[in-house]
């Protein structure tokens, strides 16, 4: 077939098209699959740099209430109220999703395994419950994997990298302003989840030594991706009140 195009400037050859498609796919995949390069900490370090990666994770038992806006894989938007009870010392999370009118859509616990107390469609799909529980754990609990590196990325943001037994990677990145991001990558370094925690500019004070973000945004990447935007309504420190489940 004769090449198409303006001679001397740009010619289209079908054979080139085939390769171009492959190259495009490769570039798209490559763009989604790179772990950021970690630069070593260099003095002078910002105050508390060494411990900044710990900041996103709760150290004691809390009850959080959020308003949640979800964009589901089919593009549907749903608003809910979410109550999450996190007990880091037991690696336990209890997640209750309800409609604004008070209907409990999902009541599930992770305590070594996922236990569903109540679920109504579409939250009765086992895969969905499992995914939600893992999302909550990613947001609030320190990664269980082995720490494989720490340092600086993106203009002096602190980063800590954890490698899990299944080959997946979790990067915890904390910016100088306190906002943070947690990225989870598959064993092939494809990004799977991104969580961002945002603090109000005038509300960076901690509660009992812990810093709870006013807003959380989670993006699940991929074909069946979804997005959760969570605004904090209430954070109750259960450990300071002697409250237990």
């Amino acid at each position: 077939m004769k090449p198409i195009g303006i001679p001397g400037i740009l010619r289209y050859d079908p054979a080139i098209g085939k390769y171009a498609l492959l190259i495009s796919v490769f570039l798209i995949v490559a763009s989604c699959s790179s772990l950021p390069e970690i630069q070593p900490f260099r003095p002078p370090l910002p105050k508390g740099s060494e411990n900044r990666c710990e900041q996103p994770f709760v150290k004691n038992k809390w009850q959080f209430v959020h308003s949640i806006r979800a964009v589901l894989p089919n593009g549907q938007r749903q608003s809910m109220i979410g109550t999450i009870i996190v007990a880091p010392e037991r690696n336990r999370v209890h997640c209750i999703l309800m409609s604004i009118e008070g209907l409990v859509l999902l009541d599930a616990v992770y305590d070594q395994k996922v236990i569903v107390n109540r679920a109504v469609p579409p939250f009765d799909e086992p895969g969905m419950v499992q995914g939600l529980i893992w999302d909550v754990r990613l947001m609030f609990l320190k990664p269980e994997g082995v720490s494989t590196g720490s340092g600086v990325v993106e203009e002096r943001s602190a980063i800590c990298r954890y490698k899990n037994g299944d080959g997946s990677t979790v990067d915890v990145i904390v910016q100088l302003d306190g906002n943070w991001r947690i990225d989870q990558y598959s064993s092939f370094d494809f990004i799977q989840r991104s969580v961002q925690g945002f603090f109000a500019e005038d509300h960076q004070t901690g509660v009992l030594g812990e810093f709870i973000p006013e807003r959380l945004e989670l993006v699940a990447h991929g074909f069946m991706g979804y997005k959760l935007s969570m605004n904090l309504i209430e954070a109750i420190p259960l450990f300071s009140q002697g409250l237990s489940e």
Partner: protein
Amino acid sequence: MRRFFFFNIVFGFFFLSSVWAVTLEQIQKEAAGVFSVRAEFIQEKHMKILAKPLVSTGVMLFKSPKSVRWEYFQPVRSILMMDNGRVKRFIEGENGLVEDLGPAKEIMQFVLQEITYWLKGEFDSSSNFTTSLKGERTIVMTPKEESFLKVIERIELTLSDQPGVMDRVRIIETQDTYTEYRFQKTMVNIPLADVLFRKI
């Protein structure tokens, strides 16, 4: 599946009766005399695992025969409107109130349809509950179907001293989990413009 979402039926119980009515027939007769209601409400969700109940506040408007506006102010602003059977639901997002087009709309259409039966005291029009009077002040509604009973144990409506006004509705899911709606500043048979049920 729709029946699982029947929790929200509180909307419908607002002014079914008065303390002076002693039979369901009398309740229906009194309800027939009410053509509009406005009341503020406090919604409390109680669960054993919660350190304290989740509290929401809002206002409810009803206009006979089939118009309802159920509006939350806190913690998430949302408006559910039914205008002569047509339902719209709006929830506040980053860009203000946005119409909710998800499956919840279909569910709420069903819920509000049921509500209109109760607002008129027409208990027989709904095949979902067995209704009885407990003392002089409380109407107890029990789901008829086993599958529904697994979700809602019963619903209790506590009547006010004022004819045509409800004090409290409690939707009991289990012994430890229930939603309570307390009504206050109730006004009955006041003029309510149709636009309140059509526009946000």
